[in-house]
């Protein structure tokens, strides 16, 4: 296990370096320059050049990248070119916000999807199965901004049941924050439920057909015990992998949801940084999301190996 972790950490470091180089290079292709963005269209060219020089963006790309990597090695994420404050001051709270939303969305969608997938598999071919699979697929097919707007209109505007903005007032307690996050979480559940439920369903169907399941029944175990002890452990392995791959989307890919619910998450932060060519914020933001994504997949792989002794024993051999 130790060698496994070390190998994965090494690969993760290489992945992050490559990611940072690619993002830096791609950002150069974006139109505009930060000096013009900050000073506005009516500033003189001399003013814009002075701003660019002050921010250091008129230096060669390799020099800019080198400076950024050097600061990063000292644990310094740099200063936002746009706002002139440390990147960590803005990125930290944004990441925290995204983690809160992702946590609530996962808390809702994972048990719901697994229950739905299991229920569909156990009643394969019947009304329950059809409702869950077709309904889930339909919800997944609808773009998240459409679902979000429908939820906002019904629950927020017509019935005033839930707030339309995801950001709770400063100093709000735990339950108030959760209340504000419910509508965006529901929108995310709608997007993810169909996919995860189908994977869970497929895994359960395969496990139900397996020899070891038949043996468990023949041994005299009741259905609940068979499902809990034998079927789920095997059926959920692919589901864990799928859930882990959604982490990257939930942490950094929610630009539309964050815009619609005015939630200051990391997705919006990076989107605005890309628009305004705030390289420092963009690079650091992408790196942070990359780290979160790698941690999530590492955790998923570890959990996978814990649940599946064959992988553990195969690695040991």
């Amino acid at each position: 296990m130790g060698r496994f972790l070390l190998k994965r950490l090494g690969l993760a470091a290489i992945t992050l370096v490559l990611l940072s180089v690619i993002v830096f290079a791609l950002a150069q292709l974006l139109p505009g320059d930060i000096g013009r963005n900050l000073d506005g269209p009516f500033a003189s060219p001399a003013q814009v050049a002075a701003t660019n020089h002050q921010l250091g963006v008129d230096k060669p790309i390799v020099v800019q990248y080198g400076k950024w990597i050097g600061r990063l090695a000292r644990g310094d994420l740099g200063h936002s070119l746009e706002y002139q404050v440390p990147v960590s001051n803005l990125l930290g709270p944004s990441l925290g916000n995204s983690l809160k939303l992702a946590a609530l969305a996962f808390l809702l969608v994972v048990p719901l999807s697994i229950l739905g997938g299991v229920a569909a598999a156990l009643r394969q071919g019947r009304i329950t199965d059809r409702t869950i699979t077709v309904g889930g697929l339909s919800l997944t097919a609808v773009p998240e901004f459409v679902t979000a707007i429908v939820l906002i209109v019904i629950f927020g505007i017509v019935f005033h049941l839930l707030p339309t903005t995801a950001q709770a007032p400063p100093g709000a307690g735990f339950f108030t924050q959760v209340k504000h996050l419910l509508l965006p979480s529901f929108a995310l559940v709608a997007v993810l439920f169909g996919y995860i439920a189908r994977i869970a369903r497929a895994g359960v169907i395969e496990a139900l057909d397996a020899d070891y399941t038949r043996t468990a029944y023949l041994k005299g175990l009741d259905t609940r015990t068979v499902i809990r002890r034998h079927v789920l452990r095997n059926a959920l392995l692919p589901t864990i992998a799928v859930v882990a791959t959604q982490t990257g989307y939930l942490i950094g890919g929610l630009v539309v949801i964050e815009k619609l619910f005015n939630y200051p998450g990391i997705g919006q932060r990076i989107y605005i940084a890309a628009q305004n060519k705030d390289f420092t914020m963009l690079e650091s933001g992408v790196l942070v999301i990359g780290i979160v994504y790698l941690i999530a997949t590492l955790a998923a792989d570890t959990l996978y190996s814990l649940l599946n002794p064959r992988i553990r024993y195969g690695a040991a051999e």
Partner: protein
Amino acid sequence: MDQETRRRLEEYRRNQAGPVENALLDDLLTGEVDRREFFRRATIFGLSTSAIAAALAALGDAPLAFAAPAAVRAGGRLRVAIIPPPAKSLDPHTYQDQGGLETGGIAGEFLTRATPSLTLLPELAVSWKPNADASVWTFKLRPNVKFQTGQTMTADDVVATYLRLLGADSAALSAFKGVLSASGVKKIDDLTVQFTLDTPTASFPYLTSSTTYQAIILPANYKNGTFEKTPQTTGAFKLVSYTPGVGAKYDRYTGWWGGSAPLDGVDVTYYTDDAAVTAALLGGQIDLIGQIQFATGRPLFGNSSVQIFAARGATHRQVPMRVDLHNQLHDYRVRQAIAMTLDRPAIVKTLFNGRADIGNDSPFAPVYPSTNKTVPQRKKDLRTAKQLMAAAGHRKGFAITLTTEQTGEIPQLAQIIQRSVKAININMKLNILTATAYFAGSQSGGPGGLGTTPWLNTPMNITDWGHRAVPNVLLNSALETGGVWNAAHYANKRYDSLVKAYEGAIALKDQLKYSKQIETILLHDTPVIFPYFYNYLAAGSTKVKGYKADALGQVYLSKTSLG
């Protein structure tokens, strides 16, 4: 007129009024200006209330009635949405976007304040006076005004603020260019500042008002980068916390010279999406949106729980057509023909539900008193348009690309133009860029002299322009030969000399004389289409009282209350 009123007026005219003030009083008494216009110009020239009252009484008018403010409910925190967020740090002299000016304007104050009807009210200056030709302006400051740091405001602070506004990194340079230089700002005594202008400018006080949103008065020892860290303005609210892209918090300033604002404080949340901010107001999460547009905020209109605040102004779009390229647009008849394909009343109805003034292809917005309304309004006239195209040798039309930015209703305007010019066989392709790409590139040098940026160099484009209290900057920068924002690359010496004459004219009748000639030339040459000047709109819940929309978008909350 009773004896006392006559005595006051004559004493004022003899001892205090200069040539400018006396000329204005003559205009009123001979009927050259009406009561309303007199009142507006009197505030620009800094006539005192008693002088205005006496002059109006001389006409047999009822005395000026200053209604006592209605009783308001004190208390509560107003939740305001500002869209979009400020793009950079909050140093007032660098404001160049809506988010910055609204954020700073809640806490900051100016020497004078522009009202929705374009009059000027005293704020940190109590009076102002021009010399004979309006080339020197003397401002008397309000005494005993305290900054939120505890310092008392003096002329040193005002001088330092204006020197900052005239510095190399100021975003207000374009407003002051050719009008005021650093050497012209002088302290006379602790409560008097004198501005000696580069050019006589009758409208100079507007440059000291809230219309020049960078001109927030700050202490002389103000350090860049500290606006969001330390409350240090003079306004009714102090900025106590700020998170870029997220929000800001203001508390009532108990040392405000104006007394006590009704609200305990203001909580600002920044938004980037129109649908989100509309939903927030309808859902009750916010009380006031600083700026809305009809095109993107339709659910708010006609909703009984929402009130719309409107201010008529000069915010507009310009559609320049480059006159210097060797293409079809070089011929003024083609440009006129394109302008004549537009059904302007229908455009205003579609895009603004009627909340806009129709433009007549010049910077003279209908809201300006100096706009000469005797110049005929251009209308849709396809017959004449086709005749013009035939005379220019383009009966069969041609292909052209219209480049523009994804801002507000501009993409829809572009589509309307594309459809309209089909009637004269013009095949128009649309190239709609993000605002970042549209304003990217250099603005000087190159073959055309205006660099490479699309908004100043493409054959035909649409650009958004903000409100100005007077059209001077638009006349200069956008249309004068060599103007820095002259996207049409228009060059007409007669036009240039008329603009200079207009800007130096003090009497309204002289301004109207020059504006008529300018409007006529521009209608003939049509280097730029000005389709409309739209109202500035804000929206709030019905609980919000005492709030007025500002043509520029200032969010002024010192007299606002909740209920």
